[in-house]
């Protein structure tokens, strides 16, 4: 199987090696075609976003207004902070020039003259590696004003690296734009969508690092070729990051639709000590987890995972063996979303802290079966009631973990409610403050 995003070529991060292997030919090909043609090819290739929502990339590009008096922008999302996902750093390290070439083609297609690459602040090393590659590309005349001479064209674009500073929420597209604008990284209310009102109020497209890195190959080898790789509804290869209880954790580039069990047992070397699998999260910590007995025959692509009640997310597969304490895991996941909630929307700001406190109580052995219902209640009240998807990201693991592992969780809680004070506020609010006690 040919690898598209991370080919097995030594020193591919160096400009000359990348060029020897057909680098910077796709941009030449692209510049010879109309922008509509390119958007059309990417649309037909079926390339879907790799940042979590799996939105059709070409369709997103086509939302950009053709005629506007404002500058247009491209944002490349390398904020990668979803627990269990660690794929973008591989691209930044091993194939940065294909990303740069992808950015150039995308900018040309949507008519942007500036691209901001947002990379999470903790990735100092990878920011430097990418910056080095970018400097080489600038020096060789592939990026910036010199492009006009190199490629004999009217098109030129600048690529600017923006370093994040430790906020998971900035991976959300509108929050990422606010962060670049120099504001607190609060997500914006949508609509208006970025294509109408993005960076500094101008039309903007935001794509994930991995999505963009696919583009040069689609242009070079044609959309027909790309659309035939893997599952037809979600074609191409996907970078699967496997972590947790496996013998060989790491990033594996495989065609979409590869069996989850194949990834875990063949590629990632199975579970240490041949233990059974209790739980698998297929797409990064915010996606609904699957029971160990649910994973047989599950294909790893957006549609197949949707059918089994989960989601592809960022392709970060977290494997947990039978000895894992799921309550602690869920408490830790919830603590993460509590920490990262930006605090704009009440359901998320307050709800996430409720989830953490209830789960901590259960982890300490003081939970009751009533708490399990309360968890689902709180999670359901966050979901869908927030500006951005962090609400869902916080609610899904809790809601699905508790419902899918109800038996497991029931064993960890007491059947009776024992509270230090006889006051079951959440279920019987009127008994907490009996009307008769209120004197005027």
């Amino acid at each position, binding site marked *: 199987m040919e690898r598209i995003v991370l080919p097995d070529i030594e020193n591919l991060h160096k400009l000359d090696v990348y060029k020897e292997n057909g680098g910077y030919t796709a941009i030449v090909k692209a510049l010879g075609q109309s922008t509509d043609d390119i958007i059309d090819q990417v649309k037909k290739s079926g390339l879907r976003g790799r940042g979590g929502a799996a939105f059709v990339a070409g369709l997103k590009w086509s939302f950009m207004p053709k005629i506007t008096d404002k500058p247009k922008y491209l944002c490349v999302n390398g904020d990668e902070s979803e*627990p269990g996902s660690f794929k*973008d750093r591989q691209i930044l390290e091993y194939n940065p020039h294909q990303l740069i070439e992808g950015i150039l083609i995308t900018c040309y297609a949507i008519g942007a003259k500036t691209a901001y690459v947002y990379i999470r602040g903790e990735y*100092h090393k990878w920011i430097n590696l990418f910056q080095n590659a970018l400097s080489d590309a600038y020096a060789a005349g592939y990026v910036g004003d010199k492009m006009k001479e190199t490629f004999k064209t009217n098109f030129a674009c600048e690529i600017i690296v923006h370093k994040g500073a430790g906020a998971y929420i900035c991976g959300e597209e509108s929050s990422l734009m606010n962060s670049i604008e*120099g504001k*607190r990284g609060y997500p914006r209310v949508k609509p208006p969508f970025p294509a109408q009102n993005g960076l500094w109020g101008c039309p903007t497209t935001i794509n994930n690092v991995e999505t963009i890195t696919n583009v040069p190959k689609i242009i070079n080898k044609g959309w027909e070729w790309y659309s035939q790789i893997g599952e037809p509804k979600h074609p191409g290869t996907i970078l699967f990051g496997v*972590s947790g209880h496996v013998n060989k954790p790491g990033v594996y580039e495989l065609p979409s639709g590869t069996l989850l069990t194949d990834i875990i047992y063949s590629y990632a070397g199975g579970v240490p000590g041949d233990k059974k699998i209790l739980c698998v999260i297929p797409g990064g910590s915010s996606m609904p987890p699957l029971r160990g007995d649910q994973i047989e025959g599950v294909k790893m692509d957006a549609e197949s995972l949707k059918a089994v009640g989960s989601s592809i997310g960022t392709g970060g597969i977290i494997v947990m063996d039978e000895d894992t304490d799921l309550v602690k895991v869920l408490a830790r996941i919830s603590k993460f979303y509590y920490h990262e909630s930006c605090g704009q929307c009440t359901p998320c700001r307050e709800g996430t802290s409720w989830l953490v406190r209830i789960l901590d109580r259960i982890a300490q052995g003081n939970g009751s079966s009533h708490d399990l219902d309360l968890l689902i209640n709180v999670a359901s009240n966050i979901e869908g009631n927030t500006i951005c998807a962090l609400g869902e990201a916080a609610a899904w693991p809790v809601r699905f973990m508790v419902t899918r592992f109800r038996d497991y969780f029931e064993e960890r809680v007491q059947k009776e409610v024992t509270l230090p004070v006889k006051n079951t506020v959440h279920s019987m609010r009127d008994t907490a403050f009996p009307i008769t006690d209120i004197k005027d």
Partner: protein
Amino acid sequence: MEFKFTPENLEKIKDILKKYPTKKSAIMPVLYLGQEQNGWISTEVMTEIASILEITDEEVLGVVTFYTMFFEKPMGKNHLQVCTNVSCMLRGGYDIYNHVKEELGIDNMEVTEDGNFSLEEVECMGSCGTAPMIAVNEDYYENLNKEKVNEIIESLKNKS
């Protein structure tokens, strides 16, 4: 304590400003410069940045408090960041975190008395495939166990 950017850093700020259409957008890279020069983001640093970028002190404060990588108090010379998020947790992230705590005798966001070390429990650092991990300032140390952690701490002690 008064704070002024060095002439070299002022030059760098000029370059940064060229990258964005508005001055305010330069705030994050300029804050990084301020933190590099001063060690942490003090009120004086914020005031200086506000006047350079022609925004209010409060706007700067708002950004500083939103992001975890801007320090609002002095941290140790070696800032140890231990990830305890789910993928690291499954591979012993908490063992590493508790071990570092014991070794250094400090808790989350505390600094050792000699100012050499500080500790932070961080969220996912993108090292899930090479867990557990510690980041010391800007450098990642991955696939750790307690022995390796001891080695890292020892070598950092000797360096200073």
